[in-house]
């Protein structure tokens, strides 16, 4: 019975995903470009005023190459320690929760804390890794969680009872729109650099109190895979933009390797 419910839910998810894919096909003329992490944050090109687009996309790679409006789709960042010098409304982020397709179900369908199976008494007794096939089929990344090299697991980041929330060091819930409060509990040095604008990125006005859109950690890092296998790097590879014109007379880029400089 319960199993059946599970399966229908999964099917429902699949249908949902397929439907969005079809919708994208239909509006093929739309130009959509991605920012840092492919699949994590896409922008649809549109005209803000005549001859002035919100974004320019690369015809070659589909990357966002230019911002006509750096604040599009942003909301205030919310309370962050140490950022109180920044005037109200000057620290903005793009909410992550809008981009997450599974998230809307998390707190309602399964982990709602009321069903007989999922009510607190049967919640995980510890945070240690266990196989979770349901989640694996929904989110293939967690089949082989590449974060922490076996030393961290779901509930180090996700709230135990409020599954539509992340969790901080006190066990208090943290919004998906403020992943910095989660990541910062283990990566304090990075959080500090991020807060100072050194790690990560901000766009808009460069003055230290200026109005900026801040890119949050998960816009660049996939929290379920920060190793990328053997590459062992926290940022996935991208297709590069086209190279510059070759100097006049040079037939191909390898010329100097084939005809080495005499020493």
């Amino acid at each position, binding site marked *: 019975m319960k199993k059946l419910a599970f399966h229908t839910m999964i099917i429902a998810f699949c249908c949902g995903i397929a439907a969005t894919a079809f919708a994208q096909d239909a509006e093929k003329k739309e130009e959509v470009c991605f*920012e*840092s992490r492919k699949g994590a944050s896409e922008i649809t090109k549109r005209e803000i005023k*005549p*001859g*002035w687009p919100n974004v*320019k996309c*690369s015809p070659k790679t589909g*990357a*966002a*190459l*230019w*911002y006509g409006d*750096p604040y599009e789709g942003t909301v205030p960042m919310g309370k962050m320690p140490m950022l109180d*010098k920044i005037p109200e409304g000057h620290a903005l982020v793009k909410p992550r929760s809008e981009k997450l397709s599974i998230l809307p179900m998390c707190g309602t369908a399964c982990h709602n804390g009321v069903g007989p199976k999922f009510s607190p008494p049967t919640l995980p007794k510890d945070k240690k890794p266990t196989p979770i096939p349901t989640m694996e089929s929904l989110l293939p990344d967690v089949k082989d969680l590449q974060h922490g090299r076996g030393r961290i697991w779901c509930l180090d980041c996700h709230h135990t009872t409020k599954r539509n929330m992340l969790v901080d060091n006190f066990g208090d819930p943290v919004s998906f729109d403020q992943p910095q409060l989660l990541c910062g509990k283990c990566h304090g040095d990075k959080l500090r*650099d991020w807060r*100072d*604008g*050194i*790690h*990560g*990125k*901000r*766009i*808009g*006005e*460069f*003055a*230290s109190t*200026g109005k900026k859109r801040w*890119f949050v950690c998960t816009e*660049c890092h996939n929290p379920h895979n920060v190793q990328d296998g053997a*590459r062992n*790097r926290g*940022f996935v*590879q*991208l*297709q*590069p*933009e*086209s*190279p*510059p*014109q*070759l*100097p*006049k007379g*040079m037939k*191909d*880029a*390898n*010329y*100097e*390797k084939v005809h080495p*400089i005499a*020493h």
Partner: protein
Amino acid sequence: MTPKETPPAGTAMEQSPGCPVPPASADPAKAVLKTSRRGFLKSSGLLSLSSLMGTAALMTQSDEAKAAVEWAEHFQKNYRLMTPEEKAEARARLERRYSAEYGKAVTVDTTDAQPGVLMGYALNIRKCIGCRRCVKACVAENNQTRGERPGERIEWIQVLRMERGEFSKDKMDHGYPEGLGIQVGGNAYTPAGQVLEGQYHYEPEAVPEKDATYMPIACMQCEKPPCVKVCPVRTTYREPDGPVVIDYNWCIGCRMCMGACPYWARRINVANPVLPKEDMNPVTHYLGNRPRMRGVVEKCHWCLQRSRHGRYPACVEVCPVGARKFGNLLDPESEVSLILARKNVFRLKAELNTFPKFFYFYD
């Protein structure tokens, strides 16, 4: 064609009395009566300007308004010597011309350096993945030529690909000179760190490549810029808020600055610039991204049209890894100041005493 030649019919010829003969002076700006020129532009419009100069014959074949504007441009002063009124005049003239040429409302900003601002730049070379988005963003913002033929494509940022050195057994004895063993970080057979022209042209499926690191280079906005020292017409100079700029109208295309720059930062328009109307960025600055003409040198100016209004340069905003940082060096809280205070920072070719305001760092 002498200036005295009778102009063709149809050209307005109300030569104002007392108008000087077209100048033989080396400083044409001095030879033209300011008042009469400005009066012209304001009252009788552009057409009559040509008659003032007495060279209407020059214009018979071209679009008259455009030619007249160009003619006025020839007689304008070096931007630094212009009075605020002359700047406003030059600005209005250019806005009219560019708007007509590109079919949209083009603005030419003349905002000066803002007090209390000294711009600085920092680039994290450990993070750079060589994706070249900065290069393309720069072109989208700064109206560079983007044709297909040789010399028609200008990019201000170059991304150098540098091979990581390797220690491998089979190369143990292939050093240079031969037989002296492997050399740290590469040897004559694996040119680690060496820059070959071809190394700008890498084109793998995905970056970063396993065996490479990347180093983007553009204008360093030196405190003591060699390019400024050599410019025979003094059309390139350092602005009080940092960037080294060019008044394109006074550039004679001699390329002295290109030879003097130790960072390969300057480009010359050898061909007529190709800038499609729909791609043209209509928000421009006089010393920044306004469209250039053939025969003039151009380079990075930290997006003056943006940065003078407090906005990050275009390359900073598109860097997917956040390797590019920009800010006010006079503000101790700015990200660049904090990087200088906290990170491992170096300047490129510091031994040349050019004192770049562009810093490389790693964490």
